[in-house]
């Protein structure tokens, strides 16, 4: 079970990198929006609220109509629900990814 999750995790990581590329090159996303999103995601991770975490993420990613994003969502959907520790790992991975692309997008 554990090995399987690790494999899924590394797959998610790879496709998440592609997602980040898409977002970073997109003109539509403002820094301020990403900042807000990060706050929401952070509080969801802290409270171990996987439901709202996915909710915020899907709401945001829904605005992009790209193959990379739907692939990422599919993979993500497969691993949920997660035990708390793994959820934190994944949650912070996604949050820190967003933090690293904060100002690349347009204002």
């Amino acid at each position, binding site marked *: 079970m554990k090995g399987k999750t690790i494999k899924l995790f590394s797959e998610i990581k790879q496709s998440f990198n592609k997602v980040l590329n898409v977002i970073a090159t997109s003109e539509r996303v403002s820094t301020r929006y990403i900042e807000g999103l*990060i706050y929401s995601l952070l509080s969801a991770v802290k409270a171990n609220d996987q439901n709202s975490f996915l909710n915020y993420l899907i709401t945001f990613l829904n605005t992009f109509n790209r193959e990379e994003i739907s692939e990422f969502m599919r993979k993500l959907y497969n691993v949920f629900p997660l035990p708390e520790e793994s959820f934190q790992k994944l949650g912070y991975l996604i949050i*820190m990814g967003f933090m690293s692309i904060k100002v690349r997008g347009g204002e």
Partner: protein
Amino acid sequence: MTNITYEAELRMKVIELRFSGNWYTDLCILGFIKLLNEIYGWELQEIRERLRKEPHLIFAGYFPVAYIGWYLIKRLERFYLSRDYRLYDIIEENPLKLENVKARLINKVYELCLEDSQENCNEREVFEKTWQKIEKLAEATGSIILGWINYLHKRKLERISKKLENEFKKCYLLSASNKIKVRKLPIHSDFYHNFMLFNPSLNVEKQKERLQKIVQRYPPLDEEILRKFDRTINKFLVSEKEIPNVYYTPTNAENIYKLFEQYPLVFLMCFEIAFENFGPLGYYAFYSPDLEFTYYVNRRLSALKRRAKKGDVLRLTWKAIIDSLYEKHAKWVLEDMYIIKYKSITRQRIIGVEYIGFDKARATLILDDRIRESLNWRINIGEGEESRTVWLIERFLQGEDLYSIILNYFSNQLSKREEFLEASKLIMALAAEYSIRHRNKEPRGHRLFTSDFFVKIPTNIEIAYSYLRNLEMISSIIKKIISPLYEESEALRSLITILLETLSKMDKNSFMHILLSELNKYPEPLTPKISKKIYRIIFQDSYWYIYALGLLIKLYRR
């Protein structure tokens, strides 16, 4: 006829001083060397050469004089320092003070031993001459005690002077012309108690006989002698039971006999001398399997002791070890080093034996200049007003957890709102701790003697330095992001305080939450490289908290 060949054979045999790996017997050898060094000032090399050239002169001539001299000095010390007499408080005249008296006695030994040549004498003749010297020495000691008694008399301290006089009368006779005659040597040993010449019921003639027995040359293993001998030795051989936390190769008379070859008793009677007396703190000796190194450390220890204040034993010991290590670069010897300590002896039982060892990994780290210097300071970890200082290097070598010490120290400084200047030292100490913990985390089923067993040690320092590199990388970028915060020191302080709280609860989730929400406030992004690095450290390193503490310390220092 057989006797002569035997004698000749013995003369051919060279007595070498070498350690065998059993600390008990090795410390006996160390005691022997230390004695000759303290009294005659001979270095190890000189002692070895003399043993090669003129063993009978050493054992029947120089050694007994030095040995008795050492115990006479010890006796004087006991009078001088004991609570019953309090001579150290009373005596104000310089020539009567302990250090001058001691120097006088050592000079006397030196004079006596250098005045005549004994090259063509046989062992018995040498010993006869030696005994005359010992008597002179005992007389000199008597006249010193007499000097004290007269002084006390002059100061009208009758009670003490009476007491001292009684002690004097036990050992000496005073003729009408004020000439001192020795009735018995005023020597005493808690360690050997009644053994051989220390038996208090002996008079001077008997003591002479016993001393001769000690320094005489014994034939190689002879069942009958051994049996006689066995009882005598076992009287003071410490059993494993009495030193429960010490493992040393259980040894018996036969082994010891073989080890010390012709003069087993000489060495066995030197065990006590190897230890350095630190007053109420106990007796300490340093031991490693390397004779030269052990000798140098112990000599340095006694030199340091003379200069230092009381209560600093451990600091001194470690200082002596580290300095010598550094000087001699004796890396291979790092494996087994112990400090052997005992509190006191009563009725031949050693009380409060401690056995402090430290491992190779820690010692290698200490050999690195930067790490050693960073650890070599005291920090105050007392809360509030009271101060409680710890010496980092000592704690480190004793295997204590530096992380919690530094965590404590840092949170104290933070609550006192005190600026501290030694952040880089603290971080270096954390790096050392990180490297030790990292090393201890071996994968399960790890085999001891794989090819990387020998490579492992040097990588210790590399781990420490990679910690520093990573930390520098992360902290510089985070500092850059939150740079506006440095304008309001109070806000920065409260952020660090909150983060520190989560850290002391080991709450990874809250730590990340607070840190990331703080970073999110500022427009500057985390670069992908740094964000990966942070992620890896926090979620994939079992010792993430050491990184986190280092980060906080770095952030606090602007």
